[in-house]
Every structure is written in C-alpha cells, then in structure tokens.
C-alpha cells in the first residue's frame, strides 16, 4: 500500500552570506492513512519547516518528499489536492466574519458549499451566524476557525502545527477526540507540537526532534519497559505489609521521605501485586506503574543529545 506521505533523507539548509544554517537533517518518516504521527521538539526544532515542505511551500535541500502520490521534490511539481493545513496562530482577513472567511477559502477549491462550511463551524463550536469580524476573535476562537478551515474539505492528509494553541481544556479534549475520529475515518494526521501530553494521548507514532535531527521514533505498539510501581498506603502498618511482600518477591523498596509510600522495583505486574497486598490487608491509597512516559523518553533523548 502506498504511504500517504513519505519523506526520505530530508535536509533543509538556509544559506546566508557567511553561514549555512541547517534546519532539518536527514529526516525520514512515513505516514499512512488512519495514522496520527506526532512530531515533537522544542521551539526551533524544525517542525514548521517540515510542515511547509510537506505542503509544498518549501523545497528540501536534499532528500525526497512524496505526498499523496505527488513527488514534491521536483520544483515545478503540481501540488496534491486533499491536504488540510493548520499553521501556528492562523490568521484570516480581519475585517470579514469567520463564516465569510471560510466561504472564500472554500470557494478556491470549490468542492464544498456554504452548508458544509456552516456544519464545520458548528462542529468546531463556532456560531456561523456570528457577525463579529475575525480580527476581533479571541485566540481560541481563531484557532477553532483555523481548524475548521483545515478540515472543512475533508482532507486525506491533515497537517497541524500546534493545534491546541489558545484552546481551553474542553476545546483541547474535543480536539483530541476529533483527531482520533478523523484517523478512524482514514485521514492521515501529522501533528507538530511541543506539548508532550497532547501528543502522547492522541498519536500512534511519535518522532522526537531537536535542532533538525530526529533523535528517536516510537510507536505506541512498541513494548514499554516495566520497572515496577510506585504506591502509597494509609499508615505505617500498611507499609510494613508492603515491606513483607517485597521481601517475599525479591523486590527492591525505596521509601519516600515523610510519606507511607515509595517505589517498588519488581517484575510482578501491578494487578497481581495489588491483589496480593489487598489480600494481606494493606490499605492502598494509590498505585502507578513505573513505565517510561513520553515525557521521560523525550527528556532522556534530549539529554543524551546534549551530552
């Protein structure tokens, strides 16, 4: 099956009179239909540049870009149809209403009409009858309008750059479920962000990038190393039961200062350990598996790169 998007060895350099500044270095990735790919990195990592290359606005210095069957490496290439783009801090004609802005944008491709524009606005929580000019929209409303223009023509590839900028928590949760919904319908989603939690919850695969270098690529199906769990119990009696359990299972125990809890290093899975402890009469306040999160992986990758 052909990938929706295929990048091979992408390098992007900007030359000034004296220096060559490399924004992207040997970036390779594929994106399939129905997949959400997260591209995470600190500011200046090259996320936006890659997004611009993927939608045909910029050309790579080296490497090959194929998007929706079109080779965008060729400078004169026709651009593929079926891409929806949301840039960071989207901007519209400030004097026109949100609806009029979307209507004008939709007319360029001419595949949808006003009813679809209105439906998309409502889906994004915007009122199509609102007569306020887009220039007076709040940051969150502008972001919703930006998302509406990106999805209104039902793209096959959705490129999102920091899509949750300015959204309230409810908006973020709605967006997350909507991205998953789109992916389930076969849309390929490329999500550039520096918000790890947001990426972790919604993406199938993730690339960690720093200064144009992809440090690590991970899939949510990759096995995650399990090191034990952290737990908190009600009182000292319960903690002594935990110590007994640890001694029986050759688990390491490190208690946190001032609390009846700590880290338990063991290969015993959490459900089994929890069952044993409850049967032993321990009162458990909380228990959390000690696994690598995206945040720990990200920080580890960045630290390794710095060394």
């Amino acid at each position: 099956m052909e990938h929706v998007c295929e990048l091979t060895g992408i390098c992007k350099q900007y030359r000034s009179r004296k220096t060559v500044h490399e924004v992207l270095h040997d970036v390779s990735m594929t994106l399939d239909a129905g997949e959400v790919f997260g591209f995470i990195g600190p500011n200046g990592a090259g996320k936006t540049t890659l997004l611009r290359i993927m939608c045909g606005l910029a050309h790579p210095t080296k490497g090959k870009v194929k998007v929706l069957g079109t080779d965008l490496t060729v400078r004169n290439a026709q651009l593929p149809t079926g891409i929806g783009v949301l840039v960071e801090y989207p901007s519209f004609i400030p004097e026109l209403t949100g609806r009029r802005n979307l209507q004008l944008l939709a007319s360029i491709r001419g595949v949808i009409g006003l009813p679809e524009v209105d439906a998309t606005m409502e889906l994004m929580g915007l009122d199509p009858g609102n007569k306020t000019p887009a220039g007076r929209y709040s940051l969150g409303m502008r972001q919703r309008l930006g998302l509406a223009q990106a999805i209104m023509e039902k793209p096959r590839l959705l490129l999102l750059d920091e899509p949750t900028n300015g959204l309230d928590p409810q908006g973020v949760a709605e967006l997350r479920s909507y991205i998953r919904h789109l992916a389930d319908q076969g849309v390929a989603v490329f999500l550039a962000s520096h918000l790890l939690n947001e990426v972790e919850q919604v993406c199938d695969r993730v690339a960690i990038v720093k200064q144009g270098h992809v440090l690590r690529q991970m899939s949510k199906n990759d096995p995650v190393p399990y090191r034990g769990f952290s737990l908190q119990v009600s009182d000292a009696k319960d903690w002594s039961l935990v110590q007994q359990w640890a001694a029986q299972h050759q688990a390491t125990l490190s208690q946190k200062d001032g609390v009846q809890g700590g880290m338990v290093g063991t290969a015993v899975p959490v459900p089994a350990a929890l069952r044993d402890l409850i049967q032993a009469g321990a009162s458990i306040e909380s228990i959390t598996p000690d696994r690598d999160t995206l945040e720990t992986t990200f920080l580890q990758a960045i630290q390794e790169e710095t060394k």
Partner: protein
Amino acid sequence: MFCMMRYQCSRLFSSKRWLFVLVIDAFLAVAVVLDRKGTVSYLLTKYYIAAPANIWDVPVQMLCADIMMIFILVTAFVFLVGDAFLRDERTGRLPMLVSRTRNRATWFVSLIPALFLAAVAFVGAAVVISLGVALLFLPVGWSFSPFLTSTINQVKSLRPFYFLPNMPLSPPLFFAGLIGYLAPALCGIALLSVAISIWWRQTAAVFIPVVWILMVDMSLRGEVMRSSPGGGRFFFSTQLMLIEHWQWADSKITAALYPFPVAASVIVFGILCVIWSALGYFSARYVDL
C-alpha cells in the same frame, strides 16, 4: 483561479489602510485648493487678470502635473498593497491558500488582476476625493477652468505645466483616460514590490521601487533635463505625469514629446507589468514561499 482572485480582491479591498490613504488624498487636495486660490487671487490683484479656477484644477494638479504629489500617491499605493506577499507569509495565510491550489504560482497570478483592480479603484478614489474636497472651496465647472486653459503669459508662468488650451476631451472623459493611464503604472510598481519581497522578506523590500523612483530616477531626470529638456521623457517619473506629454508641444526650440505619445507610455507601463509579472510568477514557482 477566479475564486483565488476573488479572495485576493476581498483581502486587498477590505483593508483598513484605505482609510489612511484616502485621508492623505484629501490633505493633498486641500493643499492644491489653497495654492490655487492664492495664485488666482495674486493674478487678479497684481495683473488684473481674471483666470478663475474650478474643481477640475485639483485632480489635474494632483494626479497628472505635480510629480511630488504623484510620488506621494505612488508611495501610498505601495503602502496599501505592496506587502501582499509579506502579510500572507507572516500571518501564515500562505499555507492555507497555496495548499488549496494545484500550482504554487496561482497565488501570484491571481494577485495580478487584483492589483490592477486595486490600482483602478485607487486612482478613481483619488479623483473622486479631490473633486469632493474641491467642491467645498471652488466653483463647479463643466469644462476645464480658464486658469488651466489660459494662453496669457502671466497665467502660463504661474502654471508650472503646460495644458492644451483646447483640450479635446471633456473633464470626465479626461479623468477616465487618466485612470486607464495611471492604473497600469501603479500596478507595475506594486507587482515589482511584491516580486522583490518574495526574494527579500523585509518590509523595506516593498519600498525599493519607490526609493528607486525618488532617489535614482527623479535625480537622474533632473540632471538630464538641465541639459536637454526633452530627454526627461525617458524616465519613469516623467512618464507618470500625464501632462508631460504636452509639455513641449508648442516649443520652437525643443522637440515635442510626440515620439513618446500617451499611448507609448501606456505600452511601456504594460510591458513593465508583463516583465514584473513574469518575475513574480517564476519567483513564486521556484523560490520557497
């Protein structure tokens, strides 16, 4: 393509900058009115010559006779539309627009007619505003004023440009022609501004053509005209002034500008539009946007 042009027009015409530019037009018109009233009164008190002005004097002075006023209007037009690319690039509108087309250059090609329409609207608005301001101070006339058409030497010496005593066109037709004359010139300058800004993404880049006209074209023109008045016709700043085409029409010493009639200037503006359009087209197609 047509819809993209409609988007470009909506964007250009809905800008609030028009208000600022139209206020400048009104101020220039007031300056002309005050100057003209003073001159007419001077002629009457000093020479007892009655050569009254009327409302048509104001747009003639503003749009086809006074190079500094024309220069201010050119600058205002570039301020209005010249940063079309930079605005789209900086606000992130470019990816939204380009991703909806099959060709990166569509954005620029659709801008060409939009800029031309903006130039027509701009000159038309300047004529209307100058007439509106003039109506407050000067009498209405149905033909060009005695001040413009007088052949008396004292009047001619106070009128720094030559105006055909028997102008064959009625004022409305004359100004319709003026719009058709200046619009391609302004459109050409704006196209060059946009094309340059694709390469050099600084606000200063937008004003390079204006600086060129002021610093290079106008100073060279001044030097050349000192030795050969007719030589001024080879400069863009001369071509911008419609009245210059008649400036030497009755001179016995200097050849008239008829080797460069009005039509020739329009052709020159048209050729420049084509050249800058081609430059912009290939820039939009091959340069990173």
